């Protein structure tokens, strides 16, 4: 369809071209014939004017006229007039009445002229185009007459042989040119066709190639193919756009997840450094930055040895790297006395590997293990203390009984002393075991308080009774300070008594002979308060900060001299806590110690369930 339109357009174009070309040729021919006539006219009049006017008179007249007539007919002369000086016609050769159709001014101008005259004109009747040429006769320098001839322009036919042959030639060239251009285009566009085929078929296989070679080139189908290709391309680009959007959203998700990982790494409570395989830091979390007082920008992409200039760590890492197989628990403990005094860090090394098990980086972790180390140390110390405390009375019992059995003691007084010691040490051991059981019950949360109404006056007196003997032996006076109305409280009477006896017993134990102890009971802010003030040795601040620690014994010789399990105050403080009470202690060396125990007061009403 399109091709037809193109053909029509081409045809119109060619025809217009031929018309314009023909017009141009005709114009050119007219111009050439005009020049031709001019030359011919000039030649003829000049030739005639060479003669004497008299040659057309007398004897020669017939001969000249005859020659002139022959000449005229062969040269297309329309007319020929020869006039003498006076204008009298000498020769007049003209068909019919043409002479009368020549305008007068033509004749007048021709006759008056002294040289060659050329005047084109149209006849008055038929309007025939005529070119008049005139020239005067001269004889002895004197004008004797004039000759005038009329020539008609040659007929120019639209169909001339010359023109037809020229046109034919031209057409041949044009057609040849079009053909050459056409096949040139075909050749030039052939890859384009294959290109469109390729796009359509996605790949170029042999069958397509064969098809292609047998298929005739067709602009229409090619345009169609191209259109198809463009449509497919459009679809493809749309699909790619969709994929791109999906990718962009995936990248967004990945970025979000990456940031999340970084946030997690920064918020975890241990240090982490990740390096690439060359050992340059690719990620470092805030924990490490804070520990080493470094800025992120200063350490990113820097070598690890530069970021953490610690020889111990560097050698640890290289040692780990040299191991062919990583041990799961490979770590080292290190301290940084200047950066983090008193803290211990456990450094672990890990090799980062990809799916193919190829090493892609390293990971170094910093874990603050100070608390774990302290706990471990505390456990060790506890075990050491416990074994010491248990073994000391046991050693006495064993060695004393061995001595008695082997008959090493002969004096009955010493024997008695030994038996007493065995007895008291056995009691000490059992007390210690009871304390330990009590403490472990409290710590495991399995100590159940046998709660009930406790009248503070009974509690107060029971405590004094319990330590009275020991106090009397050291001649220590216990001064009572009691209110008019004794408040009541809810609790486990035995446990509370044990706790208070512990404090009061310590007061007796650590007060030198003839000292004083003030034991006061009072009520304040809905609390029952027991105040125990001694005039004992007192404690240093160091001792004061440890008095509730298990097995802690003061280094003060006066205190250390006294027997004790080192568990009493630990148990006391736990029992007071279980009663929602509080305990405060003040002490000064040489002045004494002051314990204050506060337990919530409980009003007792009949019928009230506790």
């Amino acid at each position, binding site marked *: 369809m399109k091709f037809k339109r193109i053909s029509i357009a081409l045809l119109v174009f060619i025809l217009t071209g031929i018309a314009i070309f023909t017009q141009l040729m005709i114009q050119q021919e007219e111009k050439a014939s005009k020049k031709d006539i001019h030359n011919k006219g000039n030649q003829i009049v000049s030739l005639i004017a060479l003669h004497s006017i008299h040659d057309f008179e007398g004897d020669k007249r017939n001969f000249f006229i005859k020659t002139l007539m022959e000449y005229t007919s062969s040269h297309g002369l329309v007319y020929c007039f020869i006039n003498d000086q006076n204008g009298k016609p000498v020769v007049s050769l003209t068909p019919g009445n043409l002479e009368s159709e020549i305008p007068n001014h033509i004749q007048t101008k021709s006759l008056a002229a002294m040289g060659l005259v050329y005047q084109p004109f149209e006849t008055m009747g038929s309007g025939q185009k005529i070119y008049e040429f005139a020239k005067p006769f001269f004889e002895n320098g004197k004008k004797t007459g004039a000759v005038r001839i009329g020539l008609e322009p040659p007929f120019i036919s639209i169909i001339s042989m010359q023109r037809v042959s020229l046109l034919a030639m031209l057409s041949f060239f044009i057609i040849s040119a079009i053909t050459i251009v056409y096949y040139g285009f075909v050749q030039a566009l052939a890859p384009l066709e294959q290109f469109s085929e390729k796009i359509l078929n996605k790949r170029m296989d042999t069958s397509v190639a064969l098809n292609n070679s047998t298929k005739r080139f067709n602009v229409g189908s090619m345009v169609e193919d191209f259109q198809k290709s463009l449509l497919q391309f459009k679809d493809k680009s749309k699909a790619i756009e969709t994929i791109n959007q999906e990718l962009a959203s995936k990248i967004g998700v990945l970025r979000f997840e990456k940031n999340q990982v970084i946030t997690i790494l920064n918020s975890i409570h241990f240090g982490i450094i990740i390096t690439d395989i060359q050992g340059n830091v690719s990620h470092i979390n805030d924990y490490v930055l804070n520990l080493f007082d470094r800025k992120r920008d200063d350490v990113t992409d820097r070598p690890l040895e530069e970021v953490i200039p610690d020889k111990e760590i560097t050698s640890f890492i290289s040692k780990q790297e040299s191991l062919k197989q990583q041990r799961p628990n490979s770590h080292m403990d290190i301290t940084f006395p200047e950066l983090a005094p008193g803290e211990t860090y456990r450094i672990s090394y890990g090799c980062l590997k990809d799916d193919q098990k190829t090493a892609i980086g390293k990971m170094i972790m910093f874990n603050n293990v100070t608390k774990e180390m302290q706990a471990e140390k505390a456990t060790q110390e506890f075990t050491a203390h416990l074994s*010491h405390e248990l*073994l*000391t009375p046991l*050693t006495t*019992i064993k060695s004393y009984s*061995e001595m008695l059995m082997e008959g*090493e003691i002969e004096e009955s007084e010493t024997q008695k002393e030994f038996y007493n010691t065995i007895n008291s040490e056995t009691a000490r051991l059992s007390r210690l075991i009871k304390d330990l059981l009590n403490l472990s019950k409290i710590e495991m949360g399995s100590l159940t308080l046998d709660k009930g109404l406790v009248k503070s006056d009974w509690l107060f007196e029971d405590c004094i009774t319990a330590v009275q003997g020991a106090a009397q032996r050291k001649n220590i006076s216990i001064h009572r300070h009691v209110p008019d109305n004794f408040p009541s409280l809810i609790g486990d009477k035995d446990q509370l008594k044990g706790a208070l006896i512990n404090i009061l017993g310590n007061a007796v134990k650590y007060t030198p002979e003839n000292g004083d102890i003030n034991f006061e009971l009072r009520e304040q802010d809905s609390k029952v308060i027991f105040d125990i003030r001694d005039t004992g040795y007192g404690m240093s601040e160091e001792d004061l900060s440890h008095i509730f620690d298990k097995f802690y*014994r003061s*280094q*003060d010789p006066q205190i250390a001299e006294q027997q004790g399990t080192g568990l009493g105050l630990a148990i006391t403080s736990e029992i007071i806590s279980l009663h929602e009470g509080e305990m405060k202690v003040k002490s000064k060396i040489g002045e004494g110690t002051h314990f204050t125990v506060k337990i919530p007061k409980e009003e007792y009403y009949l019928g009230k369930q506790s």
Partner: protein
Amino acid sequence: MENNHKVLVIDDEAHIRRVLEIKLKNRGYQVLQAKNGQEGFDMIQKHQPDIVISDINMPIMDGKTLCEKTSGLKKERPFLTIIITARINPEDRDWIETSQDTQFMEKPFSPARIVEAIEQYLG
């Protein structure tokens, strides 16, 4: 049974000192007593005992420190140190074994075994 050997017993526990005092006196030794490492160190310098029996866990100065402080004295005048301890942990074993003329005796100890160790040392 009298002999001229001096034994210094260092322990914060009076009962231990007492039992060793009787046991050693029965064997004819001259017995000296100290309540902690510091007191013990002073007495070693003053009385130059042949045998020192010491506990590890003591206030003021413990048995380990005492051993370290007396290692110099031992080069001039050797004497046996018997360390009585509740439990031998690996660290303690190390320094006891590398110290000159030092033995350890685990609690609960037998007084007879201590006497044996002393007699073996003195030949």
